[in-house]
């Protein structure tokens, strides 16, 4: 039994809406408050409850800090959300530096989300290919044009489970502990793919057995009676319970540049090209990891044959990065390590390890435990597909842009999204590397592949394959909080 009322949670937290192949992400500003409030009050957002038959369309609504301000949500409530959410993804140089949003990735160059033009809302509509007109009209209703000024309508495309470079995407997701079965007492000695609910949904306990800070209201304050109580402080109402933060970034991918570089670097044989690209990603194009599966089961991974092949693995058997390079994208984004780098057995061993007397390799303890830095990914591709072979053809005039609308959900933006982006993906020193950041997302010019008993093989002159085109931090509220936002300021 779940501890959560699924009718109160927006569906995206639990589902990717994978059967709905098309989505429009509207980034809007409110131009008529009354109309916007009315639209939001009536908005029929899709919830996390499992429906039979499954719905054919879905609607999700998320707010920026500016959006909450525009709706006159009281300042002391707004400001009790995460500091990162309050200050936003753009407009703070310190944050841009931390996230690697520099050069062409700098917010000044973004198409949307610049600090002077931040959307109030992200209104996300999912539906079947070919039925989007109807879906859109239904969701918008009559008052849409009065209520909102559309800044962007981000369109998506379905490339058949692959992302624009051609790799199967979205294979690994954390298994959310909806039932609250995971008991966390002290250090976790093995890697688990089951992650505490509080890492992804506010108002529940997280991997530290604590509740992430969030706005709690006095029950007597306006509109609070409709909200659920805070589990850790029952005398308060929890505005954020069943909500989470949604991080959105538009990432343009240079697919031609990517495959051209592989061909130029790896030589004529397309198989070599493919292998180099796979080394950068850390999986084969079909999705198989570059390291063999673990013999022992991993909690929350391997629920079926395919998942066992693709997700039941760690890098424990590849300490030198010979099979999967340290710098590979998926090894950075999810290092799959436990709280200790080495095996701990019993209390004495635990003490010895804790005091640092059991270190074996010089890379020991360079990395943080993965379980505090997980993300639910809900991104969608955009632009036309382009096969690796076609990518080698000369560029056509006025090519259409392609890429990924990266979306992730997390309860603590600083510790989850920003940490993964800054300390793992963009860091040039990840896991003891010397001078390279993520080969796909990074800005450095090197990628290296360690070789057993030999010099690492180095690829130089790595161009930038991915450019950030926009981004913002949103709050994806519960259904109750959505109604609260719609009414509190009126």
């Amino acid at each position, binding site marked *: 039994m779940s501890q959560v009322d699924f009718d109160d949670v927006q569906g995206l937290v639990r589902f990717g809406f994978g059967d709905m192949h098309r989505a429009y992400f509207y980034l809007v500003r409110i131009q008529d408050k009354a109309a916007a409030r009315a639209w939001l009050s009536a908005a029929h957002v899709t919830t996390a409850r499992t429906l039979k038959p499954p719905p054919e369309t879905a609607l999700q609504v998320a707010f920026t800090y500016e959006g909450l301000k525009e709706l006159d949500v009281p300042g002391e409530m707004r400001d009790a959300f995460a500091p990162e959410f309050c200050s936003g993804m753009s407009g703070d140089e310190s*944050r841009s530096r931390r996230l690697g949003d520099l050069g062409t990735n700098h917010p000044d160059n973004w198409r949307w989300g610049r600090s002077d033009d931040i959307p109030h809302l992200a209104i996300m509509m999912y539906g079947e290919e070919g039925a989007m007109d109807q879906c859109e009209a239904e969701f918008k209703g009559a008052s849409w044009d009065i209520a909102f000024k559309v800044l962007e309508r981000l369109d998506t495309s379905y490339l058949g489970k692959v992302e624009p470079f051609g790799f199967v995407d979205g294979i690994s997701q954390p298994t959310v502990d909806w039932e609250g079965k995971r008991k966390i007492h002290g250090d976790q000695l093995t890697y688990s793919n089951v992650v505490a609910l509080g890492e992804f949904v506010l108002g529940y306990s997280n991997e530290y057995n604590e509740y992430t800070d969030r706005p709690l209201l006095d029950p007597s304050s306006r509109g609070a009676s409709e909200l659920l109580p805070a589990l850790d402080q029952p005398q308060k109402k929890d505005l954020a319970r069943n909500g989470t933060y949604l991080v959105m970034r538009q990432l343009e991918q240079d697919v031609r540049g990517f495959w051209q570089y592989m061909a130029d670097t790896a030589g004529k044989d397309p198989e070599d090209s493919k292998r180099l690209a796979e080394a950068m990603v850390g999986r084969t194009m079909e999705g198989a990891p570059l390291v063999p599966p673990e013999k022992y089961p991993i909690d929350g991974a391997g629920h079926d044959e395919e998942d066992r092949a693709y997700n039941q693995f760690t890098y424990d058997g590849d300490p030198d990065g010979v099979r999967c390079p340290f710098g590979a994208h998926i090894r950075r984004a999810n290092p799959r390590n436990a709280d200790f780098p080495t095996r701990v057995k019993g209390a004495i061993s635990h003490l010895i390890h804790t005091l640092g007397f059991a270190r074996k390799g010089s890379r020991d303890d360079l990395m943080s435990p993965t379980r505090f830095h997980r993300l639910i990914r809900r991104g969608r591709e955009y632009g036309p597909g382009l096969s690796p072979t076609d990518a080698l053809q000369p560029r056509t005039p006025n090519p259409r842009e392609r890429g990924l609308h990266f979306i992730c959900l997390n309860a603590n933006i600083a510790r989850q999204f920003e940490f993964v982006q800054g300390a793992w993906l963009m860091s040039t020193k990840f896991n003891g590397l010397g001078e390279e950041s993520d080969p796909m997302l990074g800005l450095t010019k090197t990628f290296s592949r360690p070789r057993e008993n030999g*010099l690492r093989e180095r690829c130089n002159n790595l161009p930038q394959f991915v450019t950030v085109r926009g981004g913002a931090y949103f709050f994806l509220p519960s259904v109750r909080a959505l109604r609260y936002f719609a009414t509190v300021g009126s």
Partner: protein
Amino acid sequence: MVVAPLDVKRTDELRSLLATMNSAPGTADPNNALIPFGQLEELHFARIVVLEDQTLDDITTAYGLPRRNYPLSLAFLADFDGDADRFRRKMVALAGNGLQKIFSYCSDFKPGTDLVNWMKQHEHPNATMYNNWIGRSMQQIREESALSQELECYFGNGSQYQNTSPEEVRRGAQQFVAQKLKDGSLTLTALGKAPLSWQLKNLANLIFVPLVLLFFTPLFLLYLPIFVIQLRRREKSDMEIAPRPAAAHVNSLARLEDYGVTNQFTAMGSLKPGLFRRWLLVILLWLIEYTTRHIYTRGHLARVPSIHFARWVFIDDKQRLVFCSNYDGSLESYMDDFINKVAFGLNVVFSNGIGYPRTNWLFFQGAKDEQKFKYFIRRHELPTEVWYNGHAGLTNYDLLRNARIRSGLEQGSMTNAEAGQWLELL
């Protein structure tokens, strides 16, 4: 650490002066006009901080005691190789005018004062000092870093050596380096040993501390039940003060961070009132100093490999503590190390400070209360006005790797397996 009271009215003026030393916010220009740090070859790190404690009202909040108004102070500290007196003289000879200018903002500094003496008089000893690798000098770091860079160029992308045996490849590298050493474009000075006097002092400390402990053990055992009662009573009643720090304060700290791969951290706070906490902290820091001197001297402090130098210094008659460190990575990853790897170590020290998240039996909980701990730390952190890093761009792991590259290169002969392992470093 030199600590001296400031002329409060001129603090803003001092801050503007200090800002002229920087090339990026908080990051010193190695060739700045006031103290050209880059010319002090033995200098690893240096910083100048105005010790402006934001938390002086906490003693009233937590214990109902009147606020103690300490003088606003300036702190100057440096991590360097060799003897302190020699370093002071050298720095004064190089940057006497600049130092005069900076210290002229201190209320007890008279123009023309003998700087070396004045700094010595204002020196506050470290209660605990941590050095990632005792004995690794700046000279060694510089030479080994140049060596790895040369080897990196020599090996190129590595593809042309695929069919040569590892030992042969290493021998080729040896010849290449021998040539470079000969023509003077590389130097590898033999690694020096610590001076005899230092070794003797260290040895004496190694033996003395356990002897003292042994001597006091019976007394301590007698006292233990009382200690437990005293500790537990306080742990249960001491107030936590860890509100979310103001956005403006956080921004003033964040704007100084993440310009390179290493960052600085300076924080301060007041000890909980009373003799119990005071003596507990003095003894604990004395014990920790023993471990950093004799045990954690080779690349990691307990499980944490990311700290270059750190120190804990008492000021104001042990009523306040200053903590300074230089660490690899971003603050969020530093906090992660604190919480997930050495929470116990932070708890035993900082739980003696006012407002620290509640501990359990001194070692437990505390920092494990992630959010409160992060708020507490950030709230006690101070903007470091000027920070110099003598080996910017190099993490502790880089320094370790470079040293291993050098020692592998200097080895006479190796099996192919050993040579292969060595090549993996490059």
